[in-house]
């Protein structure tokens, strides 16, 4: 295999496919922290040139974490759709990029190859694409899922309502919930990050969310984002659970740090399918974010973009209803500033969609990252234009428990109106019936007392 290239007469030689992938990655502070980034912009292009000549088959044969060392690598390799793989195996990454961009490569075509792609292939081609390239291909990917409503249809933009509270005060949670619903938010999920990770509090919050849903006949699904083992216990307590949640990492070691494994997730999924509240068929909700493997020193010298793609390889095993990249949450040591967070949001959305997942994005930053509110608003519009399935929504975008800035209740209708998008059809009809929103603000828009 050739792993060398020349730029202006200077030769660049790379030791492994993993090194090529790392050095071809767009600039990320996390790759610098890991000591694996290209040393300068020219070496980055030299690595991209080498990457563009590798075939998809070669990427499959060289996963960034060896088959023998990692259960995720084994699962992806052993369950890959061979027929779909054979259709594209011979393409170089450069040719694959061009094929993805061709007009005749439509949504249904992309859907038919999704299960034949490994995460490394999605990450590889991502590194050869500009932000607008990523948006153009993402928009073509059709990923439609159903729980109590239908998310991901063309021309739709959904939102997670995130009414977090620093002490899980249920009344406080419901205040934010009602406010958000009155702005037309919450069709992807009513999802609370709990401050206390116990089965009892998880069950208590789920019951409170369910009461509001049932009293007001809201066609959406509910979720409390505690650890999956805690949710399993809550299910045993009889808690109504629309979606089961877990954070995922891109390596076996990274997942161990999260307290999960393939075996545990298989068990959790089986239990959720048996005890779910929503009809489904999609009942799982996953969150990811570049840098999680490095933060637990389980990155195996691989770059954070490729490891992020491996989270999606893990997620797709469970046919989730939602997958969300919490793009700016991890901090500036992984994504330093506005341009890096913007790029990562578009990359993650692209890779997830290409691999067949219902991708949403928590467009966000922590207060020690160098990103402005204006830049963050820009990212929301870019994501929505690229066909992102859903965004988050909070009171003024401020998470009072997790202390970071995300999308607001006001941003969702603003972006929808700007791009002519509508919420999930079932929820859309409910909003119109309640006088909240019908392609524009209704009489009760922004009036939380419309909710009982």
């Amino acid at each position, binding site marked *: 295999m050739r792993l060398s290239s020349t730029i202006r007469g200077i030769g660049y030689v790379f030791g492994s496919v993993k090194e090529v992938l790392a050095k071809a990655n767009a600039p990320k*502070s996390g790759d*610098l*922290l890991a000591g694996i980034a290209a040393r300068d912009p020219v070496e980055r292009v030299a690595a991209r040139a080498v990457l563009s000549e590798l075939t998809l088959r070669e990427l499959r044969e060289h996963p960034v974490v060896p088959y023998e060392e990692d259960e995720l690598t084994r699962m992806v390799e052993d369950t890959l759709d061979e027929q779909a793989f054979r259709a594209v195996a011979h393409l170089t990454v450069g040719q694959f990029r061009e094929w993805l961009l061709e007009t005749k490569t439509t949504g249904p075509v992309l859907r038919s190859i999704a299960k034949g792609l490994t995460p490394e292939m999605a990450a590889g081609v991502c590194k050869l694409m500009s932000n607008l390239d990523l948006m153009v291909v993402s928009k073509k990917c059709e990923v439609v899922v159903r729980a109590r409503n239908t998310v991901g249809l063309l021309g739709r933009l959904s939102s997670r309502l995130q*009414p977090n*509270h*620093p*002490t899980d*005060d249920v*009344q*406080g*949670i419901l*205040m*934010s919930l*009602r*406010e958000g619903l009155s*702005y037309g938010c919450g069709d992807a999920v009513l999802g609370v990050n709990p*401050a206390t990770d116990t089965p009892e509090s998880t069950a208590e919050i789920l019951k409170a969310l369910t009461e509001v849903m049932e009293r007001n006949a809201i066609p959406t699904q509910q979720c409390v984002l505690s650890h999956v083992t805690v949710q399993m216990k809550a299910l045993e307590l009889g808690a109504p659970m629309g979606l089961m949640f877990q954070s995922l990492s891109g390596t076996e070691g990274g997942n161990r740090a999260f307290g999960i494994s393939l075996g545990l997730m298989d068990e959790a999924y089986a239990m959720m399918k048996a005890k779910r509240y929503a009809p489904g068929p999609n009942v799982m909700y996953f969150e990811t974010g570049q840098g999680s493997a490095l933060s637990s020193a389980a990155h195996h010298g691989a770059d954070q973009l490729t490891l992020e793609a491996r989270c999606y390889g893990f997620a797709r095993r469970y046919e989730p209803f939602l997958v969300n990249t919490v793009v700016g949450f991890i901090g*500036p*040591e992984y994504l*330093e500033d506005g341009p890096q967070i913007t790029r990562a949001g578009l990359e993650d959305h692209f890779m997830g969609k290409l691999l067949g997942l219902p991708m949403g994005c928590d467009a966000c930053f*922590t*207060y*020690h990252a160098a990103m402005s*509110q204006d830049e963050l608003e820009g990212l929301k519009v870019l994501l929505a234009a690229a066909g992102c399935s859903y965004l988050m929504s*909070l*009171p*003024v975008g*401020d998470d*009072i*428990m997790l*202390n970071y*800035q995300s999308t607001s209740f*006001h941003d969702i*209708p*603003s972006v929808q*109106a700007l791009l002519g998008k509508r919420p999930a059809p079932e929820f859309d009809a409910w909003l119109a019936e309640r006088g909240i929103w019908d392609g524009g*603000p209704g009489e009760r*828009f*922004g009036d*939380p*007392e419309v909710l009982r």
Partner: protein
Amino acid sequence: MSATRELIAGLKARLEASSPLEPPPPLAKVEAPPHRIFPTPRTRGRFAAKAAAHTTALVGIGHVGTRYATDVVLQFQAELAVAHQAVYTELPESFASQNGLLPLQSRVTGHREFLLRPDLGRRLDDASLARLKAEAKRGVDVQPILADGLSAVACMGAGVELLRAFVTACEARGLTVGTPVCARFARVWLEDEIGEVTGARVAAILLGERPGLGTGDGLSAYLVHAPKLGKTDGDRNMMSNIHARGTPPADAAKRLAVLASAMLAQGTSGVSLDLGKLHGELGDAGGRGYRAPQERVRLVEVRK
């Protein structure tokens, strides 16, 4: 003339003949929008008043079209500016000695590097290591460390008060306390190396926490038993939100001393520390991620 050229000529003639837009209609005097302001106890509506009893989330704020009222925008921008200011303020080099503390610095040399290289913020630079070895008391029960963390503003605010109160509370419980130090560009895990060098049984780092909106003055404390390089987050107990609107420093100091005593008595810390019996005495210090509720403060006032 081809059909296309004819079509283009026709279009041109039509567009030049009249302005592409009709002239706008005359407008009567615009009525000033109703006075909407960021909800305060005096001005908020029914829903906002009810919500304020349960949450600091900004709800019941209304809307202008689909966007925020001007007053809400200003409050929001002020809150972010306060948070950013806290992150970007550096702890002056002279701060430690002015407060009678042994000055230390991590391997970080500048503020950007501090944000991007947590690994360097977890280790002492050579000069600090030598000074710590030469000047600090050895073999104590508790090694107190004050540090900037992600908010030097918080460190300079109530940091010294918290440190002194913590030392006093530990001594009152009969614990031996090491030489108080103050570290610049410090991450939580720096306590591992400092505690290992001084041979302390428990290391306690008190440092500025990552600011939230409008809250740059919060301190956190992380305690670890048998400190040494290689300890992880699961080995630590922490208390966050130490400031006037959360847990005041004097209360926090007492609870942290209880926590240190429990670590010494049980010979462990983190997930394996049994806090069951100490719940009443510990309060918030028993948590590993608890954040107390706080009042949201209006930041912007204009006087004409």
